[in-house]
C-alpha cells in the first residue's frame, strides 16, 4: 500500500469547458506522458476536462499548466463537476436502472493492475463499481458481464438510444489508460439516458496497485450525484479477525477496503488484539493488545511498522479513540480497578484526565467539530451515555430511554449518535446528540459496537451468534434500518472501525 500524501492543489482552469468553470487537478508529468484523446471527444465537446487537456493537439498550450508531480501513488483528482441539471428519474432510487458497462481503453496495454492488460482491467473497474452500488442497498445496477462494451470513442459521447432501449435510466461509462509512468488514468462519466445529458464526470491518476480506488471514486461520484449524499466508498475498515473456538479464540488486527478488498492481517494472532481505530489520515492504527500479557493501547505506525504504548503506565488501558483532527487520542485507563477517560496528544506527552469518579467511564467519541465527546459510564448504576465538553467539563447524561446505552459513536455528520442498546438483546440504535428520537436499526441477538461510514448514512457493527459456536461477523445497516447485509470477511470478524474518506 502506498501512502497518498499531500494532495495536489487545484488550479484555475486555463481552458473553459462549455459553460462550466471548474478547478482542475493535474501536473506536468501527466501531461507529458499522456496519450492522445479520442478526436471525437474533442470534436463534440471542444474541451472536455482535465484529461482532454493532455490531448496532443493541445499539448503546446498545456505546457504552462504544469505543476510538480504528486508523490507516487497519489490520486490526482479533478474537481467534481459543477453541473446542476436535474435527474429525469423521480421514483425510488432502488428502482433506478443503472447500466455499468466495461470501461474502455485506448489500447490494450500491459499493467501490473491486471495480467490481462488495461482491456481486462476495464471490465474489473466496472465490476467493482457495480458491486459498490449494489451492496449499499440503494441501487440495482447492471454490471459489465451482461452488457455490450462501448468503444473508447463512445465514452464521452454515449450512444443514448442503445442504452435507453435496454431499459437503463442511468449509464456509467469510463475508460482506463496506461500512462507512460506506470500509473493509470481512469475517467468516469454518469449519463441520464432519458434526458440524454451528462450528469457528472471525473478523472483520476492512480498507481497501478491502487486501481480499485479509481473504481470506488467513480462509485462515489455516481452515488453522490444520484442520492445527494456525501461519498463513502473510497475508505478503509480496520477490524478484528477471529478464528478458533469460543474459549480460545485468536483475535488479529486486520484491515481492508470498504468493499473487503485488499485485505491484510496486521498482527500474527499470538497476542489477542481488540478494538482498533484508524487515525484520520490512515497513517496509524490504535488498538488494544495483550502482547505483554496486559491489555494496553498501542499506536501502530502503518508505514514503519513501529508500535508505541499510548501512555507509559503499568495500568491497563482500553478503548482508543482519535480526535477528528488526529491531534489527540482518547483512552480509558483503570487505576486500582477504576476506569476513567484520558486524553493524550497523538504525538506523545502529558495525559489529561477527563473523567473522575468511582464509576466505569470508558470509550468516547468526538463530535465532528471536536468540541464535545460522547462516552459511556455506569455512574448511575448501569451503562448509559453521557456528553461532555472536550476538556471534560459539563458532563451530562443524554440516554434516558429503556435499556442501557454503550459504545456511543458520533456521526461524522454530527446529527446522530449511534450506540449499542442493551435491552435484553443488543441492538444497534441511533439517537440525536441530545438523546432524543431513539431508533433501533437492527434486531439481532447481539449486535454490538457501531461504526459510521464516512458520510454518516451507513453503520457497520458486529453480530455474534448465540451458544457454544458464538462466532462474530461484520454487518452493516443504513439509517432506514431496511438495508442490512453481512460483509464478507475471510474468517470471523468483530470490532469494525470505518475510517474517513481516504486522503
Amino acid at each position: 500500500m502506498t501512502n497518498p500524501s499531500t494532495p495536489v492543489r487545484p488550479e484555475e482552469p486555463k481552458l473553459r469547458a462549455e459553460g462550466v468553470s471548474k478547478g482542475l487537478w493535474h501536473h506536468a508529468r501527466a501531461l507529458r506522458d499522456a496519450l492522445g484523446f479520442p478526436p471525437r471527444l474533442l470534436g463534440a465537446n471542444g474541451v472536455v476536462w482535465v484529461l482532454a487537456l493532455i490531448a496532443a493537439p493541445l499539448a503546446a498550450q498545456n505546457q504552462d499548466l504544469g505543476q510538480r508531480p504528486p508523490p507516487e501513488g497519489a490520486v490526482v483528482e479533478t474537481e467534481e463537476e459543477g453541473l446542476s441539471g436535474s435527474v429525469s428519474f423521480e421514483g425510488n432510487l432502488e428502482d433506478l436502472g443503472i447500466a455499468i458497462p466495461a470501461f474502455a481503453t485506448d489500447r490494450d496495454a500491459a499493467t501490473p493492475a491486471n495480467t490481462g492488460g488495461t482491456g481486462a482491467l476495464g471490465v474489473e473497474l466496472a465490476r467493482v463499481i457495480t458491486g459498490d452500488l449494489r451492496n449499499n442497498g440503494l441501487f440495482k445496477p447492471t454490471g459489465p458481464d451482461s452488457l455490450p462494451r462501448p468503444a473508447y470513442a463512445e465514452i464521452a459521447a454515449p450512444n443514448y438510444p442503445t442504452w435507453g432501449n435496454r431499459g437503463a435510466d442511468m449509464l456509467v461509462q469510463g475508460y482506463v489508460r496506461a500512462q507512460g509512468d506506470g500509473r493509470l488514468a481512469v475517467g468516469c462519466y454518469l449519463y441520464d439516458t432519458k434526458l440524454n445529458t451528462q450528469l457528472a464526470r471525473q478523472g483520476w491518476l492512480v498507481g497501478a496497485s491502487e486501481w480499485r480506488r479509481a473504481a470506488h471514486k467513480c462509485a462515489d461520484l455516481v452515488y453522490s450525484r444520484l442520492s445527494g449524499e456525501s461519498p463513502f466508498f473510497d475508505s478503509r475498515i480496520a477490524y478484528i479477525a477471529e478464528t478458533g473456538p469460543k474459549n480460545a479464540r485468536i483475535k488479529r488486527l486486520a484491515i481492508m477496503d470498504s468493499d473487503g478488498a485488499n485485505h491484510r492481517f496486521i498482527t500474527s494472532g499470538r497476542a489477542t488484539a481488540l478494538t482498533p481505530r484508524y487515525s484520520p489520515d490512515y497513517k496509524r492504527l490504535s488498538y488494544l493488545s495483550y502482547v505483554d500479557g496486559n491489555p494496553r493501547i498501542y499506536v501502530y505506525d502503518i508505514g514503519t511498522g513501529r508500535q508505541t504504548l499510548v501512555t507509559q503506565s503499568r495500568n491497563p488501558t482500553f478503548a482508543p479513540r482519535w480526535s477528528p483532527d488526529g491531534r489527540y487520542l482518547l483512552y480509558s485507563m483503570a487505576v486500582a480497578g477504576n476506569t476513567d477517560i484520558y486524553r493524550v496528544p497523538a504525538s506523545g506527552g502529558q495525559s489529561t484526565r477527563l473523567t473522575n469518579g468511582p464509576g466505569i467511564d470508558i470509550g468516547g467519541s468526538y463530535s465532528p467539530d471536536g468540541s464535545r465527546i460522547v462516552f459511556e459510564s455506569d455512574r448511575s448504576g448501569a451503562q448509559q451515555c453521557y456528553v461532555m465538553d472536550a476538556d471534560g467539563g459539563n458532563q451530562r447524561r443524554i440516554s434516558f430511554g429503556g435499556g442501557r446505552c454503550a459504545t456511543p459513536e458520533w456521526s461524522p455528520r454530527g446529527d446522530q449518535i449511534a450506540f449499542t442498546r442493551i435491552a435484553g438483546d443488543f441492538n444497534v440504535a441511533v439517537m440525536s446528540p441530545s438523546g432524543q428520537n431513539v431508533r433501533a436499526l437492527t434486531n439481532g441477538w447481539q449486535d454490538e459496537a457501531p461504526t459510521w461510514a464516512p458520510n454518516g448514512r451507513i453503520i457497520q457493527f458486529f453480530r455474534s451468534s448465540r451458544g457454544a459456536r458464538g462466532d462474530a461477523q461484520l454487518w452493516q445497516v443504513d439509517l432506514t434500518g431496511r438495508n442490512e447485509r453481512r460483509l464478507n470477511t475471510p474468517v470471523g470478524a468483530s470490532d469494525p472501525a470505518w475510517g474517513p474518506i481516504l486522503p
Partner: protein
Amino acid sequence: MTKNALALLAATATLALGACAKKAPEQLPPAPVETGTAPTETPTDSVSGPGTQEHFATAVGAPNTTVYFDTDMYDIDAEDAAKLQTQARYFAQYSNVNFTVEGHADERGTREYNLALGERRANAAKNYLVSLGIPAERIRTVSYGKERPVALGSDEGSWAQNRRAATVVID
C-alpha cells in the same frame, strides 16, 4: 502428605472460616496467620511444589481458586470472602509465591465495558486479599473481559460461571 490429605486440610480450613464468611467484608479480615491451620509444605514426587498452579489448587481446593459475581456486580460476598481467606492462608504460608488475579465477565456486556468490569472484579478480589495481609506487590491483576469464557453456552448457568475472578499461580 498426599494430594488427598492436602485437599482435606484445605477443606477443613475453609470450614473453620465459615463463621467469618457470613460477615460483611468491611468487618473482616481476621489475620490469616491466626486462624486455622495453614497447609504445610511437604513436597512429594507426585505433587508439584509451591509456586505452581497445581500446588496452589491442590492446597486450597480447586473451587476455592475462583470467586463468582452477580451480573454487573463486583462485590465480595460471604462465599467469596471464605474462598479468599483460604487463598490468603496459602499465600501467607508461601510468602515467596507471587500470583495473578484474572477478572472476567460474561458475554452479556459490551467488549470494552467488560474489560473494565473484569479489571474491577480482579481488583475487588485483590483488595480483599490485601486486607487479609497479602502484600499488594505480590498480586498482579489482569482483565480478560468477555474474551476467555470457561462455559460456552449462552444461558444463565454459563454466564454465572464466566463472571469470575480466578487466582492463578504462574510458574
